[in-house]
């Protein structure tokens, strides 16, 4: 009759535990010993069958005999195997004495594999486990959009520049940068009030802060408007006979705000300025500050 069972379920007709793939047939039955769908490993088509299964870390040996074939409830007999590997193998041998070689062998193999994976589980739980947190798409999108908007609202460059200028004003940099503010502001005002006059201004070249100055020299060369500023510089310096350091160029930039009203007269003065400028810049060499 077992042969009949196999003929119908196993080979010809439908078995709900059977899964067929291209190369092999698998058996999904939980009492199956090998996991494949074979005549010798089908728990439904064999009267005498045994498996090893584990539950909550403990291994059990399940056995099925012909005597109990009529009582499905008592069909599978369960024996707890010892935790000791060798002892458990002996127990399997004891219980399956006089059973076919195939079943005994496969039971032991299955038991070995189960113990190995149990060991692995125990080792892994000791190490750090990676917790997977699912992303929420809506939230991700919302966060991204908010970040972009915040970035635009932040106007980082402006903010940083403002902060740096604030620090400059509050003198946190000490004496590194010399911007003689007051002098040139006054000069500007005076210039606005008076008409311009030609001048031979004497300036001193201070080579203290070479790095900065050299940079500024370069910048000035490239910018035409600077010549106008240089001009104002000339006129202002004649009115304020104090000795200025080389930083007039920096100051010239600062006066760029007030440049426009002076454009007319400044332009007339340009040829003069150029001459002077050349004299000054000839000795200085241009190097790029790091």
């Amino acid at each position, binding site marked *: 009759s077992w042969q009949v069972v196999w003929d119908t379920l196993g080979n010809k007709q439908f078995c709900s535990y059977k899964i067929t793939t291209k190369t092999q047939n698998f058996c999904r039955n939980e009492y199956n010993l090998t996991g494949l769908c074979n005549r010798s490993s089908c728990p439904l088509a064999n009267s005498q069958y045994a498996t090893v299964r584990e539950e909550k870390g403990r291994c059990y040996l399940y056995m099925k005999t012909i005597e109990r074939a009529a009582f499905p409830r008592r069909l599978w007999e369960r024996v707890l195997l010892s935790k000791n590997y060798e002892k458990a193998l002996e127990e399997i041998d004891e219980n399956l004495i006089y059973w076919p070689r195939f079943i005994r062998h496969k039971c032991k193999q299955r038991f070995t594999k189960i113990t190995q994976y149990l060991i692995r589980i125990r080792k892994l739980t000791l*190490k*750090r486990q990676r917790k997977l947190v699912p992303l929420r798409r809506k*939230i991700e999108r919302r*966060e*991204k959009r*908010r*970040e972009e*908007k*915040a*970035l635009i*609202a*932040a106007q*980082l*460059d402006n*903010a*940083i*520049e403002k*902060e*740096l*200028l604030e*620090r*400059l004003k509050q003198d946190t*940099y*000490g004496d*590194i*940068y010399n*911007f003689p*503010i007051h002098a040139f502001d006054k000069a500007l005002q005076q210039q606005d009030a008076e008409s311009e006059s030609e001048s031979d201004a004497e300036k001193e070249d201070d080579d203290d802060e070479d790095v*900065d100055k050299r*940079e*500024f020299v370069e*910048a000035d060369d490239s910018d035409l408007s600077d010549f106008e500023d240089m001009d104002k510089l000339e006129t202002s310096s004649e009115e304020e006979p104090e000795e200025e350091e080389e930083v007039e160029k*920096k*100051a*010239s*930039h*600062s006066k*760029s*705000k007030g440049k426009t009203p002076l454009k007319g007269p400044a332009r007339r003065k340009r040829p003069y300025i150029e001459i002077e400028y050349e004299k000054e810049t000839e000795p200085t060499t241009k190097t790029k*500050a*790091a």
Partner: protein
Amino acid sequence: EKLAAKKKRRKEREALGDRAPPKAIPKTIENQRVYDETTVDPNDEEVAFDEATDEFAPYFNRQTVPKILITTSDRPRGRTVRFCEQLSTVIPNSHVYYRRGLALKRIIPQCIARDFTDLIVINEDRKIPNGLVLSHLPDGPTAHFRMSSVRLRKEIKRKGKEPTEHVPEVILNNFTTRLGHSIGRMFASLFPHDPQFIGRQVATFHNQRDYIFFRFHRYIFKSEKKVGIQELGPRFTLKLRSLQKGTFDSKFGEYEWIHKRREMDTSRRKFHL
């Protein structure tokens, strides 16, 4: 029709000339921000006292020099590794160590033994860095951020060179509330207290609507009122997820602040930093 209304308004304004009423201030989210009761007042005594006695006091009193350890999660991919390297050039006195499966709980005592003041762990997911854990070591607060839009140095459009070894300045913008204040101090404690102005480098942590943007620039004062900045160094944005009182401990740590989505993300105008 909006355009038409605008044009009409502008014409009216021009017609009125000097007597026109002042321009209406546009409503921005920053303007409409829900008032946060933990906003720090510059003159607040309690805050000042707190700051004098919290874990960053030794740093701000210049007793300790920051020494930083940067590491990643397991098996960092190329992008993360390069980001770590760049970060270590930005932050002076920092070291990058790889983590081959070492538990954080065990490396923290080791770090303390070797005199590190801060630990940065960059968490990685799918080959990009996406999280940052910053913990102040001698039993200091631990902040966990989500990191986004990381740009490496070569992806930034600029023509400058790498950051030099000078100690950069630090700019902390817009950290208003108590929480923001403590986070700001955490960032400040990463950098040595005396910036070398010769280097002309500045690291900026700018908080805007709870997103902290990090940028690293080199600045030049072209004149008294004009400064030019050139971006070098990596950039990234952080969003605070949680702040723990002690060092990093996920199970037993005492959380000072956690971002609870259901409660905190309800209003568009409410921010916590």
